[in-house]
């Protein structure tokens, strides 16, 4: 039921999903409602992309479990899916690369759907390449393919300011070329943060801030803590995920110590590079 005048959007959420919680899933629902409410967008798909083990975050359990839990969690969803590409890479993959990968996949699927028309295809491709080369306007302006936007919480937006966690050009690409949908968590003010960063301010039109009026702070950290202490996590995660966690005895004091003495992959990668800090 797509309105021809709306832009098609696919939402991509990257993260540890360690484990996936109802809050992650709510983020998708809130984002979809918000975008469609503007009358400009039609959200056709959601993608959950759990990070690979090479990210080396403390307490990160095996990707195979995290992907499976996300799959169980989204079984009942008609539009949210899980993609394991990122988790299967042997090295940590920058978010911008993950987005590019998924965008290329989306384009490929769109082109396969078009009637076999090499002229039309070539023309489209050339336009896109020109835009990519020349400016950072959102790709939706030059193609009638779907737009891919990064879906995240305000904490991710604010993490753009952490030195050596992101490359400046990656941030510019994410907000300039693709777009960001940021769901506010309690206690953060994304508008203020956007205002304080020249890069973000420049592309503020591509940053959609979704206010979560009802605080829903189910963080995966809290869930892991509760599990370590033998407390119930029912109704914080989908039932099937609660069962999976129990069956596989995931999340103990031991699992939380994983990578305790290891440096997070982005820091490892960028520590030598000289990066500008946000002004």
């Amino acid at each position, binding site marked *: 039921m797509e309105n021809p005048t709306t832009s098609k959007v696919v939402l991509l959420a990257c993260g540890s999903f360690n484990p996936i919680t109802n809050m992650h899933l709510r983020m998708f*629902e809130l984002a979809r409602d918000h975008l469609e409410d503007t009358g400009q967008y039609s959200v056709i798909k959601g993608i959950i992309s759990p990070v690979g083990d090479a990210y080396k975050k403390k307490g990160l359990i095996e990707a195979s479990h995290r992907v499976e839990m996300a799959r169980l969690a989204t079984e009942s969803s008609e539009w949210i899916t899980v993609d394991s590409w990122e988790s299967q890479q042997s090295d940590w993959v920058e978010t911008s690369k993950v987005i590019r990968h998924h965008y290329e996949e989306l384009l490929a699927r769109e082109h396969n759907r078009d009637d076999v028309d090499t002229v039309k295809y070539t023309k489209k491709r050339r336009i896109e390449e020109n835009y990519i080369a020349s400016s950072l306007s959102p790709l939706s302006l030059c193609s009638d393919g779907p737009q891919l936007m990064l879906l995240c919480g305000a904490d991710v937006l604010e993490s753009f300011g952490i030195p050596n966690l992101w490359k400046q050009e990656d941030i510019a690409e994410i907000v300039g070329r693709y777009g960001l949908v940021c769901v506010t968590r309690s206690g953060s003010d994304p508008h203020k943060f956007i205002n304080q960063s020249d890069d973000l301010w420049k592309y503020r039109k591509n940053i959609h801030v979704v206010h979560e009026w009802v605080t829903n702070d189910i963080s995966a950290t809290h869930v892991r803590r509760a599990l370590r202490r033998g407390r*119930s996590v029912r109704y914080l995660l989908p*039932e099937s995920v609660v069962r999976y966690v129990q069956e596989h005895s995931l999340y103990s004091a031991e699992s939380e110590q994983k990578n305790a003495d290891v440096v997070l992959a982005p820091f490892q990668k960028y520590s030598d590079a000289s990066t500008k800090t946000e002004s």
Partner: protein
Amino acid sequence: MASCRVPLVLLACGSFNPITNQHMRLFELARDHMHSTGRFEVVGGIVSPVSDGYGKQGLVPAKHRISMAKLALQSSNWVTVDEWESQQPDWTETVVTMRYHHGRILKEYEQSAGRHSDASENFASPSSPFPQLKLLCGADFLSSFKIPGLWLDDHVEELVQRFGLVCVSRGSLQPERAVHESDTLFRHRRNVFLVREWVRNETSATEIRRALRRDQSVKYLIPDSVIEYIHQHELYTEDSERRNEGTALRPLIKQAHQPIKSLDD
């Protein structure tokens, strides 16, 4: 070893209009907490939706609220829905509902204890104490004791002294303050168990109904089966929210001109 633990049943009274994941969380949090005191073994949980006679604005018929609660609790092996309160002809005071359930629980206990002993009298021994029933609620419930006309003083007294409260803190409300500000609660503070909910989850039935009216998603806030039920029966619209508009809550009417009730009802 649970031999010296008091068997405990938790009773939650409320509109459950509709039941939400947060309601069900209350039971989980309360059970974990009471168990961790070392003194209790939580053996059951009861959801008791209020009757239509309560007269609260936006309250949909009890039969729907009961059905939704049943659907939501299908996956629970210890919490059940009870229809007694919703079936009473008039709104029932919380304490009366508690007396009913406690009586029922004691009877069941006596019957099962009777099967294990030949004594005609059943004594609760240290290794097998009488089961207790406590009221499970959120911090907003505690604050409601202050609302004039909503509660009879004697009832509040009986509630905390005879039964006890398990109160789960919600959002920014501080139940410790409500206990501090009420002499009755303060006097029986040892029977008022405060459970800290570290995860701030302000999902309320009010918000759910608002989202439904606006055609916004409530997935992952209430069980899928309940969402389906709501859509099937077209509950929670602007019309349904206006039900009982302008009507005073039944407790305020019923208790306005009544003399203070005594303990024996």
